[in-house]
Protein backbone atom coordinates (compact mmCIF):
# COMPACT_ATOMS: atom_id res chain seq x y z
CA UNK A 1 0.00 0.00 0.00
CA UNK A 2 1.16 3.57 -0.73
CA UNK A 3 2.69 5.47 2.17
CA UNK A 4 1.92 9.16 2.61
CA UNK A 5 5.15 11.20 2.59
CA UNK A 6 5.59 13.45 5.63
CA UNK A 7 8.48 15.87 5.99
CA UNK A 8 9.62 17.04 9.40
CA UNK A 9 12.02 19.92 9.93
CA UNK A 10 14.75 19.28 12.49
CA UNK A 11 17.00 21.86 14.18
CA UNK A 12 20.04 19.57 14.03
CA UNK A 13 20.85 16.60 11.81
CA UNK A 14 19.34 13.22 12.65
CA UNK A 15 21.19 11.58 15.48
CA UNK A 16 20.98 10.06 18.91
CA UNK A 17 18.71 12.81 20.23
CA UNK A 18 16.05 11.61 17.81
CA UNK A 19 16.26 7.93 18.75
CA UNK A 20 12.44 7.50 18.99
CA UNK A 21 12.01 8.74 15.43
CA UNK A 22 14.78 6.53 14.08
CA UNK A 23 13.30 3.54 15.91
CA UNK A 24 9.88 4.32 14.48
CA UNK A 25 11.27 4.51 11.01
CA UNK A 26 13.64 1.54 11.13
CA UNK A 27 11.19 -0.76 12.93
CA UNK A 28 8.42 0.02 10.47
CA UNK A 29 6.18 1.84 12.96
CA UNK A 30 5.81 4.83 10.62
CA UNK A 31 5.09 2.49 7.73
CA UNK A 32 2.47 0.68 9.76
CA UNK A 33 0.85 4.03 10.45
CA UNK A 34 0.79 4.66 6.69
CA UNK A 35 3.43 7.40 6.50
CA UNK A 36 6.96 7.75 5.19
CA UNK A 37 8.86 10.30 7.29
CA UNK A 38 11.74 12.31 5.87
CA UNK A 39 13.59 15.16 7.54
CA UNK A 40 15.14 18.50 6.58
CA UNK A 41 17.66 20.30 8.71
CA UNK A 42 18.45 23.90 9.54
CA UNK A 43 20.97 25.25 11.98
CA UNK A 44 18.75 25.99 14.95
CA UNK A 45 15.07 26.30 15.60
CA UNK A 46 14.74 29.92 14.47
CA UNK A 47 14.64 28.96 10.81
CA UNK A 48 12.09 26.26 11.55
CA UNK A 49 9.65 28.62 13.22
CA UNK A 50 9.85 30.89 10.22
CA UNK A 51 8.82 28.04 7.96
CA UNK A 52 5.90 27.09 10.17
CA UNK A 53 4.68 30.68 10.54
CA UNK A 54 5.04 31.25 6.81
CA UNK A 55 3.03 28.10 6.16
CA UNK A 56 5.81 26.59 4.08
CA UNK A 57 6.10 23.49 6.22
CA UNK A 58 3.57 21.35 8.04
CA UNK A 59 5.65 19.82 10.81
CA UNK A 60 8.76 20.96 12.65
CA UNK A 61 10.47 19.71 15.76
CA UNK A 62 11.65 22.80 17.64
CA UNK A 63 12.58 24.03 21.06
CA UNK A 64 9.70 24.95 23.31
CA UNK A 65 10.84 28.58 23.36
CA UNK A 66 10.75 28.76 19.59
CA UNK A 67 7.31 27.18 19.58
CA UNK A 68 6.06 29.90 21.94
CA UNK A 69 7.63 32.67 19.86
CA UNK A 70 5.99 31.21 16.75
CA UNK A 71 2.69 31.14 18.59
CA UNK A 72 2.95 34.87 19.31
CA UNK A 73 3.42 35.50 15.58
CA UNK A 74 0.72 33.12 14.40
CA UNK A 75 -2.00 32.16 16.82
CA UNK A 76 -2.98 28.88 15.19
CA UNK A 77 0.40 27.29 15.85
CA UNK A 78 -0.10 24.03 17.75
CA UNK A 79 2.12 21.60 19.58
CA UNK A 80 1.30 17.88 19.34
CA UNK A 81 3.86 16.24 21.61
CA UNK A 82 7.44 16.68 22.75
CA UNK A 83 10.40 14.52 21.92
CA UNK A 84 11.81 15.22 25.37
CA UNK A 85 9.53 15.96 28.30
CA UNK A 86 12.37 17.37 30.40
CA UNK A 87 14.49 20.42 29.91
CA UNK A 88 17.07 19.85 27.19
CA UNK A 89 19.09 22.86 28.35
CA UNK A 90 21.55 22.50 31.18
CA UNK A 91 23.56 24.88 33.25
CA UNK A 92 26.49 22.93 34.63
CA UNK A 93 29.60 23.86 36.58
CA UNK A 94 32.93 22.13 36.47
CA UNK A 95 33.12 19.81 39.45
CA UNK A 96 36.45 21.28 40.59
CA UNK A 97 35.22 24.88 40.50
CA UNK A 98 33.45 24.65 43.82
CA UNK A 99 30.20 25.94 42.44
CA UNK A 100 27.02 24.36 43.72
CA UNK A 101 24.30 26.73 42.60
CA UNK A 102 23.53 29.57 40.23
CA UNK A 103 24.21 32.12 42.95
CA UNK A 104 27.75 30.81 43.37
CA UNK A 105 28.51 31.82 39.80
CA UNK A 106 29.14 35.29 41.21
CA UNK A 107 32.41 36.59 39.84
CA UNK A 108 32.74 33.67 37.48
CA UNK A 109 32.46 33.17 33.75
CA UNK A 110 29.63 31.19 32.28
CA UNK A 111 30.04 29.75 28.82
CA UNK A 112 26.99 29.36 26.59
CA UNK A 113 26.56 28.35 23.00
CA UNK A 114 25.49 31.54 21.25
CA UNK A 115 23.34 34.61 21.56
CA UNK A 116 19.93 34.39 19.98
CA UNK A 117 17.79 31.35 20.60
CA UNK A 118 15.83 29.77 23.43
CA UNK A 119 18.86 28.68 25.38
CA UNK A 120 20.21 32.19 25.86
CA UNK A 121 16.79 33.29 27.17
CA UNK A 122 16.86 30.54 29.75
CA UNK A 123 20.35 31.52 30.78
CA UNK A 124 19.38 35.16 31.26
CA UNK A 125 16.29 34.17 33.21
CA UNK A 126 18.37 31.93 35.47
CA UNK A 127 20.97 34.64 35.98
CA UNK A 128 18.28 37.20 36.82
CA UNK A 129 16.76 34.89 39.34
CA UNK A 130 20.04 34.27 41.03
CA UNK A 131 20.39 38.04 41.43
CA UNK A 132 23.44 38.26 39.20
CA UNK A 133 24.15 40.97 36.65
CA UNK A 134 25.79 40.20 33.31
CA UNK A 135 29.14 41.93 32.74
CA UNK A 136 29.16 42.94 36.36
CA UNK A 137 28.86 40.05 38.76
CA UNK A 138 28.98 37.39 36.05
CA UNK A 139 30.64 37.16 32.67
CA UNK A 140 28.99 35.45 29.71
CA UNK A 141 31.16 33.95 26.98
CA UNK A 142 29.72 32.40 23.78
CA UNK A 143 31.86 29.29 23.43
CA UNK A 144 29.61 27.41 21.04
CA UNK A 145 28.36 23.87 21.29
CA UNK A 146 30.57 20.91 22.20
CA UNK A 147 33.81 20.92 20.29
CA UNK A 148 37.50 21.55 20.70
CA UNK A 149 36.95 25.25 21.37
CA UNK A 150 34.51 24.70 24.26
CA UNK A 151 36.60 21.85 25.66
CA UNK A 152 39.68 24.05 25.72
CA UNK A 153 37.75 26.95 27.20
CA UNK A 154 36.71 24.71 30.07
CA UNK A 155 40.10 23.07 30.45
CA UNK A 156 42.03 26.30 30.62
CA UNK A 157 39.47 27.92 32.90
CA UNK A 158 38.26 30.56 30.44
CA UNK A 159 34.85 29.62 31.79
CA UNK A 160 34.00 27.77 34.98
CA UNK A 161 30.50 26.79 34.01
CA UNK A 162 28.65 26.01 30.82
CA UNK A 163 25.15 26.24 29.57
CA UNK A 164 24.01 24.30 26.58
CA UNK A 165 21.70 21.57 25.44
CA UNK A 166 22.17 18.11 26.88
CA UNK A 167 24.09 16.56 23.96
CA UNK A 168 26.87 19.13 24.38
CA UNK A 169 27.06 18.57 28.10
CA UNK A 170 27.19 14.82 27.55
CA UNK A 171 29.83 15.06 24.84
CA UNK A 172 32.09 17.19 27.06
CA UNK A 173 31.49 14.81 29.96
CA UNK A 174 32.63 11.98 27.75
CA UNK A 175 35.77 13.99 27.01
CA UNK A 176 36.58 14.06 30.70
CA UNK A 177 34.91 17.15 32.11
CA UNK A 178 33.14 16.38 35.39
CA UNK A 179 29.97 18.33 35.88
CA UNK A 180 27.79 19.55 38.71
CA UNK A 181 24.29 20.34 37.44
CA UNK A 182 23.21 23.74 38.72
CA UNK A 183 20.15 24.20 36.53
CA UNK A 184 17.49 25.79 38.76
CA UNK A 185 15.02 23.13 39.71
CA UNK A 186 12.04 25.09 38.45
CA UNK A 187 13.40 24.73 34.91
CA UNK A 188 13.94 21.02 35.02
CA UNK A 189 10.55 20.19 33.54
CA UNK A 190 10.63 22.71 30.73
CA UNK A 191 9.78 20.70 27.62
CA UNK A 192 12.58 19.94 25.15
CA UNK A 193 12.07 19.73 21.40
CA UNK A 194 8.42 19.50 20.48
CA UNK A 195 6.44 18.74 17.32
CA UNK A 196 4.84 21.91 16.00
CA UNK A 197 2.13 22.27 13.38
CA UNK A 198 -0.78 24.63 12.70
CA UNK A 199 -4.56 24.50 12.85
CA UNK A 200 -4.45 25.11 9.12
CA UNK A 201 -2.84 21.70 8.69
CA UNK A 202 -5.04 19.99 11.27
CA UNK A 203 -8.19 21.38 9.67
CA UNK A 204 -7.73 19.18 6.62
CA UNK A 205 -8.39 15.46 6.66
CA UNK A 206 -5.00 14.64 5.22
CA UNK A 207 -3.23 16.94 7.67
CA UNK A 208 -5.12 15.43 10.58
CA UNK A 209 -4.32 11.93 9.39
CA UNK A 210 -0.63 12.75 8.99
CA UNK A 211 -0.48 14.44 12.39
CA UNK A 212 -2.16 11.47 14.06
CA UNK A 213 0.06 8.93 12.36
CA UNK A 214 3.22 10.90 13.09
CA UNK A 215 2.35 11.44 16.73
CA UNK A 216 1.28 7.89 17.50
CA UNK A 217 4.23 6.30 15.70
CA UNK A 218 6.72 8.67 17.38
CA UNK A 219 5.22 8.03 20.80
CA UNK A 220 5.44 4.29 20.16
CA UNK A 221 9.07 4.83 19.26
CA UNK A 222 9.54 6.54 22.61
CA UNK A 223 7.93 3.64 24.49
CA UNK A 224 10.07 1.16 22.61
CA UNK A 225 13.28 3.10 23.25
CA UNK A 226 12.60 3.39 26.97
CA UNK A 227 11.78 -0.27 27.24
CA UNK A 228 14.52 -1.62 24.94
CA UNK A 229 17.50 0.67 25.46
CA UNK A 230 20.22 -1.63 24.17
CA UNK A 231 18.38 -2.48 20.97
CA UNK A 232 17.49 1.16 20.38
CA UNK A 233 21.13 2.24 20.78
CA UNK A 234 22.28 -0.47 18.45
CA UNK A 235 19.70 0.59 15.89
CA UNK A 236 20.65 4.28 15.97
CA UNK A 237 24.36 3.58 15.69
CA UNK A 238 23.93 1.24 12.76
CA UNK A 239 21.64 3.70 11.00
CA UNK A 240 23.69 6.84 11.57
CA UNK A 241 27.26 5.68 11.68
CA UNK A 242 28.86 9.08 11.88
CA UNK A 243 27.00 9.86 15.12
CA UNK A 244 28.77 6.99 16.87
CA UNK A 245 32.30 7.71 15.68
CA UNK A 246 33.26 8.30 19.31
CA UNK A 247 31.66 5.44 21.17
CA UNK A 248 32.10 6.79 24.68
CA UNK A 249 30.50 10.08 23.73
CA UNK A 250 27.73 8.26 21.91
CA UNK A 251 26.89 6.13 24.92
CA UNK A 252 26.90 9.06 27.29
CA UNK A 253 24.69 10.97 24.94
CA UNK A 254 22.31 8.08 24.53
CA UNK A 255 21.94 7.65 28.27
CA UNK A 256 21.13 11.32 28.65
CA UNK A 257 18.72 11.24 25.70
CA UNK A 258 16.84 8.38 27.28
CA UNK A 259 16.70 10.17 30.59
CA UNK A 260 15.05 13.14 28.90
CA UNK A 261 12.41 11.20 27.03
CA UNK A 262 11.58 9.14 30.08
CA UNK A 263 8.64 10.92 31.77
CA UNK A 264 8.32 11.50 35.51
CA UNK A 265 6.29 8.94 37.44
CA UNK A 266 2.66 9.00 36.40
CA UNK A 267 3.19 10.73 33.07
CA UNK A 268 3.36 9.47 29.54
CA UNK A 269 6.31 9.97 27.17
CA UNK A 270 5.93 13.04 25.01
CA UNK A 271 3.05 14.38 27.09
CA UNK A 272 2.25 18.09 27.15
CA UNK A 273 1.91 19.64 30.60
CA UNK A 274 0.48 23.17 30.87
CA UNK A 275 2.55 24.11 33.92
CA UNK A 276 5.86 23.41 32.20
CA UNK A 277 4.78 25.49 29.18
CA UNK A 278 3.88 28.29 31.55
CA UNK A 279 7.50 28.20 32.75
CA UNK A 280 8.66 28.71 29.18
CA UNK A 281 6.49 31.79 28.92
CA UNK A 282 7.96 33.14 32.16
CA UNK A 283 11.47 32.64 30.86
CA UNK A 284 10.73 34.45 27.61
CA UNK A 285 8.76 37.18 29.37
CA UNK A 286 11.68 37.95 31.65
CA UNK A 287 13.62 39.13 28.58
CA UNK A 288 10.55 40.84 27.10
CA UNK A 289 10.50 38.45 24.17
CA UNK A 290 6.83 37.61 24.78
CA UNK A 291 4.17 39.25 26.96
CA UNK A 292 4.04 37.90 30.51
CA UNK A 293 0.28 37.38 30.35
CA UNK A 294 0.43 35.21 27.23
CA UNK A 295 -2.26 32.52 27.38
CA UNK A 296 -0.42 29.38 26.45
CA UNK A 297 -3.37 26.97 26.46
CA UNK A 298 -4.45 27.37 22.81
CA UNK A 299 -0.93 26.28 21.78
CA UNK A 300 -1.16 22.91 23.46
CA UNK A 301 -4.85 22.14 23.41
CA UNK A 302 -7.97 22.40 21.32
CA UNK A 303 -10.23 19.97 19.55
CA UNK A 304 -7.72 18.81 16.95
CA UNK A 305 -4.74 18.52 19.27
CA UNK A 306 -6.77 16.55 21.75
CA UNK A 307 -8.04 14.22 19.05
CA UNK A 308 -4.48 13.54 17.92
CA UNK A 309 -3.33 12.91 21.48
CA UNK A 310 -6.26 10.62 22.18
CA UNK A 311 -5.41 8.53 19.14
CA UNK A 312 -1.69 8.49 19.93
CA UNK A 313 -2.03 7.15 23.41
CA UNK A 314 -4.95 4.84 22.69
CA UNK A 315 -4.52 1.76 24.84
CA UNK A 316 -1.68 3.21 26.95
Amino acid at each position, binding site marked *: QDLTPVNV*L*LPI*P*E*GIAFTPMIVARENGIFADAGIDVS*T*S*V*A*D*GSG*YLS*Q*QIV*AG*HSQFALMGAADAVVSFTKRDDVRVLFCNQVKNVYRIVAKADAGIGSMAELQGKSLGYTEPGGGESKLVSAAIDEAGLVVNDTIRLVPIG*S*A*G*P*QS*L*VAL*QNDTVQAYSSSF*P*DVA*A*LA*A*AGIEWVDITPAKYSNVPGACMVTTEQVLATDEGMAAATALTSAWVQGQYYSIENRAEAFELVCST*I*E*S*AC*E*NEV*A*AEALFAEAMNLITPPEGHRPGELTPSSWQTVVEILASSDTVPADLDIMPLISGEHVEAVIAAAYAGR
Partner: protein
Amino acid sequence: MTQSLWYRIGLPVGVFVIFVAIWQILSVTGTLNPVTFPSPLEITIAFGELVTRGYFWDATRITLLETLLGFIIGAALGLVIGALTGTFRTFRTAFYPFVVAFQNTPRVALAPIFLTWFGFGITSKVVMAAVICFFPVVINTVAGIAGVDENAKTLFRSLGASKAQTFFRLTLPGASAMAFAGIKTALTLALLGAIVGEFVGASEGLGVLIKELNFQLEVAMGFAVVIFLAVIGLVLYGLIELLEKRLITWARD
Protein backbone atom coordinates in the same frame (compact mmCIF):
# COMPACT_ATOMS: atom_id res chain seq x y z
CA MET B 1 68.80 31.73 -14.46
CA THR B 2 66.09 29.14 -15.26
CA GLN B 3 65.47 27.01 -12.24
CA SER B 4 65.82 23.28 -12.57
CA LEU B 5 62.75 21.11 -12.13
CA TRP B 6 64.41 19.54 -9.12
CA TYR B 7 64.65 22.92 -7.48
CA ARG B 8 61.14 23.98 -8.40
CA ILE B 9 59.59 20.84 -6.98
CA GLY B 10 62.17 19.92 -4.39
CA LEU B 11 62.13 23.25 -2.58
CA PRO B 12 58.39 23.44 -1.80
CA VAL B 13 58.31 19.73 -0.95
CA GLY B 14 61.26 20.30 1.36
CA VAL B 15 59.54 23.23 3.03
CA PHE B 16 56.42 21.10 3.44
CA VAL B 17 58.33 18.21 4.99
CA ILE B 18 60.14 20.51 7.40
CA PHE B 19 56.88 22.19 8.34
CA VAL B 20 55.16 18.86 9.04
CA ALA B 21 58.20 17.59 10.95
CA ILE B 22 58.27 20.63 13.24
CA TRP B 23 54.53 20.34 13.79
CA GLN B 24 54.93 16.65 14.68
CA ILE B 25 57.76 17.39 17.10
CA LEU B 26 55.84 20.19 18.78
CA SER B 27 52.89 17.81 19.14
CA VAL B 28 54.93 14.96 20.56
CA THR B 29 56.67 17.21 23.09
CA GLY B 30 53.26 18.50 24.15
CA THR B 31 53.87 22.12 23.16
CA LEU B 32 50.75 21.96 21.03
CA ASN B 33 47.50 21.12 22.77
CA PRO B 34 46.28 17.91 21.10
CA VAL B 35 42.69 19.07 21.43
CA THR B 36 43.15 22.17 19.37
CA PHE B 37 46.07 21.07 17.26
CA PRO B 38 46.36 17.33 16.63
CA SER B 39 49.64 16.07 15.25
CA PRO B 40 50.15 15.29 11.56
CA LEU B 41 50.43 11.62 12.45
CA GLU B 42 47.12 11.61 14.29
CA ILE B 43 45.48 13.43 11.42
CA THR B 44 46.88 10.92 8.94
CA ILE B 45 45.65 8.00 11.02
CA ALA B 46 42.26 9.67 11.43
CA PHE B 47 42.07 10.17 7.70
CA GLY B 48 42.93 6.51 7.20
CA GLU B 49 39.95 5.59 9.36
CA LEU B 50 37.70 8.13 7.72
CA VAL B 51 38.14 6.70 4.24
CA THR B 52 36.83 3.36 5.46
CA ARG B 53 33.57 4.95 6.54
CA GLY B 54 30.65 4.95 4.12
CA TYR B 55 29.24 8.18 5.57
CA PHE B 56 32.44 10.02 4.69
CA TRP B 57 32.04 9.20 1.03
CA ASP B 58 28.32 9.97 1.16
CA ALA B 59 29.13 13.39 2.59
CA THR B 60 31.82 13.93 -0.04
CA ARG B 61 29.37 13.03 -2.76
CA ILE B 62 26.75 15.46 -1.47
CA THR B 63 29.19 18.35 -1.09
CA LEU B 64 30.66 17.72 -4.51
CA LEU B 65 27.18 17.54 -6.01
CA GLU B 66 26.22 20.86 -4.41
CA THR B 67 29.48 22.41 -5.52
CA LEU B 68 29.25 21.24 -9.10
CA LEU B 69 25.56 22.01 -9.54
CA GLY B 70 26.07 25.43 -7.99
CA PHE B 71 29.11 25.99 -10.14
CA ILE B 72 27.38 24.99 -13.36
CA ILE B 73 24.31 27.11 -12.65
CA GLY B 74 26.29 30.08 -11.35
CA ALA B 75 28.87 30.01 -14.11
CA ALA B 76 26.26 29.53 -16.85
CA LEU B 77 24.14 32.39 -15.53
CA GLY B 78 27.26 34.46 -15.08
CA LEU B 79 28.23 33.88 -18.69
CA VAL B 80 24.77 34.79 -19.96
CA ILE B 81 24.44 37.91 -17.79
CA GLY B 82 28.05 38.83 -18.52
CA ALA B 83 27.46 38.44 -22.26
CA LEU B 84 24.30 40.58 -22.11
CA THR B 85 26.05 43.18 -19.99
CA GLY B 86 29.09 43.24 -22.19
CA THR B 87 27.13 43.36 -25.42
CA PHE B 88 24.23 45.70 -24.73
CA ARG B 89 25.06 49.15 -23.42
CA THR B 90 21.59 49.77 -22.05
CA PHE B 91 21.56 46.48 -20.22
CA ARG B 92 24.92 47.36 -18.78
CA THR B 93 23.90 50.82 -17.65
CA ALA B 94 20.69 49.53 -16.13
CA PHE B 95 21.89 46.43 -14.32
CA TYR B 96 25.63 46.49 -13.82
CA PRO B 97 25.53 48.80 -10.80
CA PHE B 98 23.44 46.17 -9.02
CA VAL B 99 25.85 43.41 -9.95
CA VAL B 100 28.65 45.44 -8.38
CA ALA B 101 26.56 46.37 -5.34
CA PHE B 102 25.56 42.77 -4.81
CA GLN B 103 29.15 41.66 -5.11
CA ASN B 104 30.04 43.93 -2.24
CA THR B 105 27.42 42.44 0.05
CA PRO B 106 28.76 39.85 2.44
CA ARG B 107 26.85 37.00 0.89
CA VAL B 108 27.10 34.68 3.88
CA ALA B 109 24.56 36.97 5.47
CA LEU B 110 22.18 35.71 2.80
CA ALA B 111 22.66 32.06 3.66
CA PRO B 112 19.80 32.00 6.18
CA ILE B 113 17.53 33.78 3.72
CA PHE B 114 18.31 31.25 1.02
CA LEU B 115 17.49 28.52 3.48
CA THR B 116 14.08 30.07 3.92
CA TRP B 117 13.47 30.61 0.24
CA PHE B 118 14.90 27.48 -1.21
CA GLY B 119 14.20 25.00 1.51
CA PHE B 120 16.37 22.68 3.47
CA GLY B 121 17.33 20.23 0.78
CA ILE B 122 20.42 20.66 -1.31
CA THR B 123 18.76 23.47 -3.27
CA SER B 124 19.68 26.19 -0.80
CA LYS B 125 23.33 25.05 -0.79
CA VAL B 126 23.36 24.91 -4.57
CA VAL B 127 21.94 28.42 -4.68
CA MET B 128 24.53 29.65 -2.18
CA ALA B 129 27.30 28.10 -4.27
CA ALA B 130 25.83 29.52 -7.47
CA VAL B 131 25.41 33.03 -6.05
CA ILE B 132 28.92 33.13 -4.73
CA CYS B 133 30.50 31.93 -7.97
CA PHE B 134 28.26 34.00 -10.23
CA PHE B 135 30.05 37.32 -9.85
CA PRO B 136 33.60 36.60 -10.85
CA VAL B 137 32.24 35.04 -14.03
CA VAL B 138 30.06 38.08 -14.82
CA ILE B 139 32.84 40.52 -14.12
CA ASN B 140 35.44 38.64 -16.11
CA THR B 141 33.09 38.03 -19.01
CA VAL B 142 32.30 41.73 -19.18
CA ALA B 143 36.01 42.55 -19.02
CA GLY B 144 36.74 39.93 -21.66
CA ILE B 145 34.14 41.35 -24.02
CA ALA B 146 35.37 44.88 -23.41
CA GLY B 147 38.85 43.65 -24.23
CA VAL B 148 37.98 42.20 -27.63
CA ASP B 149 40.35 43.75 -30.14
CA GLU B 150 38.86 46.88 -31.72
CA ASN B 151 40.68 46.04 -34.93
CA ALA B 152 39.07 42.62 -35.05
CA LYS B 153 35.68 44.29 -34.59
CA THR B 154 36.44 46.61 -37.50
CA LEU B 155 37.46 43.59 -39.56
CA PHE B 156 34.16 41.86 -38.83
CA ARG B 157 32.25 45.01 -39.68
CA SER B 158 34.12 45.33 -42.94
CA LEU B 159 33.21 41.74 -43.75
CA GLY B 160 29.57 42.67 -43.16
CA ALA B 161 29.17 40.21 -40.29
CA SER B 162 25.72 40.08 -38.67
CA LYS B 163 25.32 40.70 -34.92
CA ALA B 164 25.01 36.98 -34.34
CA GLN B 165 28.08 36.20 -36.43
CA THR B 166 30.13 38.81 -34.63
CA PHE B 167 28.96 37.48 -31.29
CA PHE B 168 29.59 33.81 -31.93
CA ARG B 169 32.67 34.07 -34.10
CA LEU B 170 34.45 36.97 -32.45
CA THR B 171 33.07 38.17 -29.12
CA LEU B 172 32.58 34.75 -27.60
CA PRO B 173 35.93 33.18 -28.47
CA GLY B 174 37.66 36.54 -27.96
CA ALA B 175 36.30 36.90 -24.43
CA SER B 176 36.69 33.26 -23.52
CA ALA B 177 40.21 33.38 -22.11
CA MET B 178 39.25 36.17 -19.71
CA ALA B 179 35.89 34.58 -18.88
CA PHE B 180 37.67 31.32 -18.13
CA ALA B 181 39.86 33.03 -15.58
CA GLY B 182 36.63 34.00 -13.83
CA ILE B 183 35.31 30.47 -14.16
CA LYS B 184 38.46 29.15 -12.50
CA THR B 185 37.95 31.38 -9.48
CA ALA B 186 34.29 30.46 -9.51
CA LEU B 187 34.86 26.76 -9.03
CA THR B 188 36.83 27.29 -5.84
CA LEU B 189 34.23 29.75 -4.63
CA ALA B 190 31.45 27.26 -5.35
CA LEU B 191 33.03 24.85 -2.91
CA LEU B 192 33.18 27.62 -0.35
CA GLY B 193 29.52 28.47 -0.98
CA ALA B 194 28.47 24.87 -0.53
CA ILE B 195 30.30 24.63 2.80
CA VAL B 196 28.84 27.93 4.02
CA GLY B 197 25.40 26.66 3.06
CA GLU B 198 25.98 23.42 4.92
CA PHE B 199 27.17 25.21 8.01
CA VAL B 200 23.96 27.19 8.15
CA GLY B 201 21.74 24.20 7.71
CA ALA B 202 22.03 20.81 6.14
CA SER B 203 21.59 17.18 7.02
CA GLU B 204 24.49 15.85 4.99
CA GLY B 205 27.77 16.93 3.51
CA LEU B 206 31.35 17.56 4.59
CA GLY B 207 30.39 20.81 6.33
CA VAL B 208 27.91 18.89 8.45
CA LEU B 209 30.50 16.19 9.06
CA ILE B 210 32.99 18.76 10.35
CA LYS B 211 30.40 19.94 12.84
CA GLU B 212 29.48 16.43 13.85
CA LEU B 213 33.12 15.37 14.37
CA ASN B 214 33.83 18.57 16.29
CA PHE B 215 30.87 17.87 18.49
CA GLN B 216 32.22 14.42 19.27
CA LEU B 217 35.62 15.99 19.88
CA GLU B 218 37.11 13.81 17.16
CA VAL B 219 39.43 16.71 16.48
CA ALA B 220 41.96 14.85 14.33
CA MET B 221 39.18 13.60 12.09
CA GLY B 222 37.78 17.11 11.85
CA PHE B 223 41.19 18.36 10.73
CA ALA B 224 41.41 15.51 8.26
CA VAL B 225 38.14 16.63 6.69
CA VAL B 226 39.35 20.24 6.45
CA ILE B 227 42.57 19.11 4.78
CA PHE B 228 40.54 16.83 2.53
CA LEU B 229 38.51 19.89 1.50
CA ALA B 230 41.73 21.71 0.67
CA VAL B 231 42.74 18.79 -1.52
CA ILE B 232 39.35 18.76 -3.22
CA GLY B 233 39.79 22.47 -3.88
CA LEU B 234 43.18 21.87 -5.44
CA VAL B 235 41.97 18.92 -7.52
CA LEU B 236 39.02 20.90 -8.84
CA TYR B 237 41.37 23.75 -9.65
CA GLY B 238 43.71 21.37 -11.45
CA LEU B 239 40.85 19.86 -13.43
CA ILE B 240 39.49 23.18 -14.53
CA GLU B 241 42.99 24.25 -15.54
CA LEU B 242 43.27 21.13 -17.67
CA LEU B 243 39.92 21.91 -19.25
CA GLU B 244 41.10 25.45 -19.89
CA LYS B 245 44.23 24.19 -21.62
CA ARG B 246 42.08 22.00 -23.85
CA LEU B 247 39.51 24.64 -24.68
CA ILE B 248 41.57 27.81 -24.87
CA THR B 249 44.42 26.30 -26.83
CA TRP B 250 45.50 29.66 -28.14
CA ALA B 251 46.16 31.44 -24.85
CA ARG B 252 49.84 32.11 -24.43
CA ASP B 253 52.22 33.37 -21.70
